[in-house]
């Protein structure tokens, strides 16, 4: 099997080491998501088309002329990422649930948190792919250079926080009757700090503010990431327990 | 001088504020009693069934 080859190649550590087992399980979940997505491409296509549509709608709604662009670009980008991210999180968990894959994963003799981190890393990769495509498209459409190291760092930190909470909450949301509408309602009030900090930090880097002025926002992002990864790590067990 | 000329008359806002407080509390308490009563009725009916079996 292809998956086994990859596991063997990427993890040469001793099979009994618990940490190596953990990472092998984690990587197996990530690889499963990526290869499934590579075959169907439905999730990424939906996220991408949706993201581009959101940007297009913002263009009409906000009259993004040269002056408006400078101040609202950060906001437009993050709203786009958040909406596209919700779409991806919901879909990625819903397919697990519908095809009974989640139950299969839970039966596997691996640490539950490996499943969580596997799903989270998979979701993060999908979000990065969307961001990597949206950024140049936005740059070209609105003639603004978005490839700045600071901005990329903010996008990295912001996406991690968003996905850390989002993966945990989407696992809860897909098990509810009202799952299609539930995820954004559960997620958005909790990621308010990420959104504020990410928008302000991105805006700061786009306006070439001094590092010191953006620093506070980066701190909030880092603290949020650490706290919520730790919480999700602790509570994932309770969310998938049968 | 206990009452300065500058003290604005904001009694309307005060009444509105407390009207909201009492209104919302009343609505909540009413819903509370209704739910409690309904549960009691359900319990009575179910107990009758339970004994009847």
């Amino acid at each position: 099997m292809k998956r086994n080859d990859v596991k063997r190649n990427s993890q040469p550590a001793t099979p009994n080491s618990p940490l190596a087992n953990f990472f092998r399980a984690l990587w197996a979940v990530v690889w499963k998501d990526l290869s499934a997505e590579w075959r169907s491409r439905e999730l990424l296509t939906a996220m991408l088309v949706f993201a581009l549509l959101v940007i297009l709608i913002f263009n009409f709604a906000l009259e993004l002329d040269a002056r408006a662009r400078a101040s609202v670009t950060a906001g437009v980008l993050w709203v786009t990422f958040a909406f596209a991210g919700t779409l991806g999180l919901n879909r990625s968990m819903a397919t697990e649930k519908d095809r009974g894959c989640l139950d299969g994963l839970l039966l596997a003799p691996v640490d539950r948190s490996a499943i969580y981190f596997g799903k989270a890393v998979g979701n993060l990769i999908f979000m990065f792919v969307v961001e990597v495509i949206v950024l140049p498209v936005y740059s070209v459409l609105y003639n603004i250079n978005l490839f700045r190291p600071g901005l990329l760092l903010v996008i990295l930190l912001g996406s991690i926080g968003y996905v850390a909470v989002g993966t945990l909450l989407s696992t809860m949301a897909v098990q509810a009757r009202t799952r299609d509408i539930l995820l954004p309602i559960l997620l958005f009030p909790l990621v308010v700090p990420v959104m504020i900090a990410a928008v302000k930090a991105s805006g700061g880097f786009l306006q070439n503010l001094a590092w010191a002025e953006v620093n506070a926002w980066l701190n909030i992002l880092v603290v949020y990431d650490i706290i919520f990864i730790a919480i999700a790590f602790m509570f994932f067990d309770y969310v998938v327990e049968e | 001088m206990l009452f300065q000329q500058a003290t604005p008359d904001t009694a309307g806002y005060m009444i509105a504020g407390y009207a909201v407080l009492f209104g919302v509390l009343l609505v909540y308490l009413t819903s509370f009693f209704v739910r409690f009563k309904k549960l009691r009725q359900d319990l009575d009916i179910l107990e009758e069934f339970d004994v009847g079996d």
Partner: protein
Amino acid sequence: MQSKPRFLTILDSVTAILFVIAVAMVFFYAPLERTMGQVQKVFYFHVATAWVGMLGFLVAAVVGILYLLKNDCKYDIAGIAAIEISLVFFFIAIIMGSIWARPVWNTWWTWDPRLTTATIVELIYAAYMMLRQGIEDPDRRARFGAVYSILGFLSVPLTFISIRLLRTIHPVVVGDSDPGAEGSFSMTDPMKATFFFSLFTFSVLFVDLFWHRLRMGKLAVVVEELRMKVSA
């Protein structure tokens, strides 16, 4: 379980008496604040309801942890009870604050850190109620509720800090940049007495309501079990 405990009946009467006294103190004992006028009297119950709201959300987070540790359904009943009551009180606090702000800050609403955080908190717990409504299995509902109430409570400080940072970097356009400066006042002794008495009254009111809500929750569990038994 069926008969009402005697102490609860006593607590009901005490709460009612305290509440009447608190209202009387607010309207007849507390002096008129000079720069704001009568509307300042909203402040006493506004702070008291907000305090009870935060207290309930804290209680819910604590019993959420206890539920996950002990897996006992009484903690779940306590969690939903606390959040339901707190949602009502927090809603009252936000509306009363808004009414107070109209004459004092000259606007119904500013995006001040406290106001904004309060609204987000209200939305978090509204989401909590929706999450519970969407799940039929009682055990799963309790677990998810516990996890979300802990998650929600922990996000509040970060939300507050980030909004506060946002506002200090970009001052509020309407009104003073520091809302604490405008509409703040020094309390005289009768004001302090009224203020602390209101806080105390609402704390007792919370305990009383919480107790009633717990009994209702337990009754609901009994009814549900009986329903299963009868229909089986």
